[in-house]
């Protein structure tokens, strides 16, 4: 087969700056490609951009919705980043999110009618523990039997979906709900207080920001966090230094599961106010993109989650005002990840034109 006169050659010294610039480059390329997408669909690209990126945040309510949508992404992505840094590939945050919602709902329904101010904290704990417990299954199977955590955590997403479906059709079904798949609406004591009156933005944003800070401290200021980074960046060195690989797997998965569980709790105790079989809107999967666009760094994740939330909201807007198909959000998300991965290749490699001289 004739060889193309193009090849990738490892760089002698990768740039230290480019890892941080590459997400920005990816965003710029996504916007540029967006012009082509809008034009190809026969729409005015300027109007498309205005509707997609500006209209969702045109007023305070829009901003509150953006923050509300970004909150579960921040939570899930921070938890995932801790594991990803140590090469622990938890792809099942979606399932852990659902279990968090189930755990929190379990607490809310068990103490139904309670007006105790301890109810919400109990739901927070219940959600985080349930998410972490779900993530402990791939952790156990990985450390005990070396089962691939990517596959196990991913497949458990489907199990979680069936579990929540069974619960809302069965034991937790609202007795006054005409057999529809939903629990009762939660009491006020089981709902997260609203931060800004007249919006849906609730205290889960504060929880997410706290988790971001905690994630930062853990990753950059703790000994364990340091070990996990070493394990991710230089596995051999970590082994040589005697860092326990199993311990990293457990920490990585439990952090991811716990944070996703918190996000699930915030969904049922926040904008939903009940558990239904539609509790998950793909936050666990979208958070994987967020984690990478954010460079597995809590500050980066903060910005990436806002960007990702904007892509969701913008997609709704161009549907409403330009009659574009619903898949437009996915197209932008896909382009963002594609350009990011593409740009990342060039951090470590450079493109050489011309045949190999050998």
């Amino acid at each position, binding site marked *: 087969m004739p060889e193309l006169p193009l090849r990738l050659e490892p760089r002698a010294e990768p740039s230290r700056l480019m890892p941080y610039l590459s997400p920005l480059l990816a965003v710029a390329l996504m916007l540029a490609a967006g012009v082509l997408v809008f034009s190809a669909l026969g729409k005015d690209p300027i109007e498309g951009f205005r509707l997609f990126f500006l209209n969702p945040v045109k007023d305070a309510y829009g901003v509150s919705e953006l923050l509300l949508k970004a909150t579960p992404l921040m939570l899930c992505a921070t938890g995932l980043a801790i594991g990803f840094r140590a090469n622990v590939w938890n792809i099942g945050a979606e399932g852990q999110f659902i279990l968090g919602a189930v755990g929190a709902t379990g607490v809310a329904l068990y103490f139904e009618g309670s007006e105790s101010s301890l109810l919400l904290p109990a739901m927070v704990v219940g959600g985080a523990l349930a998410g972490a417990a779900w993530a402990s299954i791939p952790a156990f199977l990985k450390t005990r039997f070396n089962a691939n955590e990517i596959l196990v955590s991913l497949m458990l997403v489907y199990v979680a979906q069936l579990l929540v479906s069974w619960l809302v059709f069965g034991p937790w079904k609202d007795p006054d709900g005409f*057999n529809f798949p939903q629990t009762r609406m939660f009491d006020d004591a089981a709902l997260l207080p609203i931060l800004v009156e007249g919006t849906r933005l609730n205290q889960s944003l504060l929880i997410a920001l706290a988790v971001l800070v905690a994630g930062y401290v853990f990753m950059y200021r703790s000994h364990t966090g340091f070990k996990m980074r070493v394990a991710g960046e230089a596995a051999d060195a970590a082994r040589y230094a005697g860092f326990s690989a199993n311990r990293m797997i457990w920490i990585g998965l439990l952090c991811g599961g716990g944070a996703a569980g918190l996000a699930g709790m915030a969904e049922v105790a926040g904008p939903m106010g009940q558990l239904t079989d539609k509790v998950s*809107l793909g936050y666990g999967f979208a958070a994987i993109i967020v984690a990478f666009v954010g460079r597995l760094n809590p500050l980066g994740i903060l910005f990436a989650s806002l960007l990702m939330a904007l892509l969701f909201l913008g997609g709704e807007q161009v549907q*409403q005002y330009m009659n574009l198909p619903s898949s437009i959000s996915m197209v932008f998300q896909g382009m963002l990840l594609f350009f990011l991965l593409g740009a990342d290749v060039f951090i470590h490699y450079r493109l050489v034109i011309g045949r190999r001289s050998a």
Partner: protein
Amino acid sequence: MLDRRNFVLSAGALVLASTLPLAAVAQDAAKIGFVYVSPIGDAGWTFQHDEARKELEASLGTKIETRYVENVTEGADAERVIREFAASGSKIVFATSFGYMNYVERVAKQFPNVTFMHATGYKSGKNFGNYNARFYEGRYLNGVIAGKMSKSNIIGYVAAFPIPEVLQGINALTLGARSVNPNIEVRVIWTNSWYDPGKEREAAMTLISQGADMLTQHTDSTAVVQAAEERGVHAFGYHSDMSKYGPKAHLTATTHHWGDFYIKTVSEVLAGTWKPENVWGGFKEDMIRLAPLNPAVPGDVKTMVEELSAKLKAGTFHPFTGPVVDQAGTERLAAGAVIDDATLGKMDYFVQGVASRLPSK
């Protein structure tokens, strides 16, 4: 500082600006928003709602302007979409799936001057009505055809979730089939999803291998009709006329027609005469129809179905007329009695003749 020249200029601008909104109001069409649960596609639940939206536009012309968002999951995002329609000046918002109910309720309270219509739910309010169709009427007629034409006496039913609307359909089909053939047995496979062509197809194949020679589905894709065509058995479409997906297999379909209802509702809201009500239309209101019968349906069956449709249109026949006996043998409806809407809306059992069990409660 406001000097004289500036004052004249700004006064001029003020006059100009104040005339603009007036001109805009005179031309403004009433905005109508539609929230769809799945992509529109070319057949199915959302497709029928979108066809009706087009009928509405064709009928009311420049008086209105419709907008829609498709594929809105029945979770927390729905509230933002519904609210955005209301906040951006829509007169009416149609939310076309059950799971939007609590979100519609919340937004309706925040926007008292906007009218909200929610499909297939049970809540309503001052500016918040709900609507649904008597799908089971068409199912009964499908059952009559299936009962007459089945050779194996087994009908396969692929269904999403055991909610009342779905159980009404399964039970009506069973009652219709057994009214002409008491040996009929109906087998149900649950897919736990409204739209999952792969699973629907798998379920259809399983039912065929269990001997079913008549199939139907209460899910959103055309997979079951296609599977029937492939394996040489018959099928009944649902939502839309699905004959092009199985020209030989497709005997008829229970089709949904929301157009007249949308036109009526919008006209009433614009005229200021709309009142919140629970609309539940069937053959009589022309909300439910049978798709054209396949030539494979024998003449005597055709006549029978035509007679029954005429009775449904006239309102002289109800598919749930006693005796209705459930699987456990308990009489749910005495001989000669007709079920009332409240009881029908809460249906949570299978009638005798359904071989499958309901998922445990």
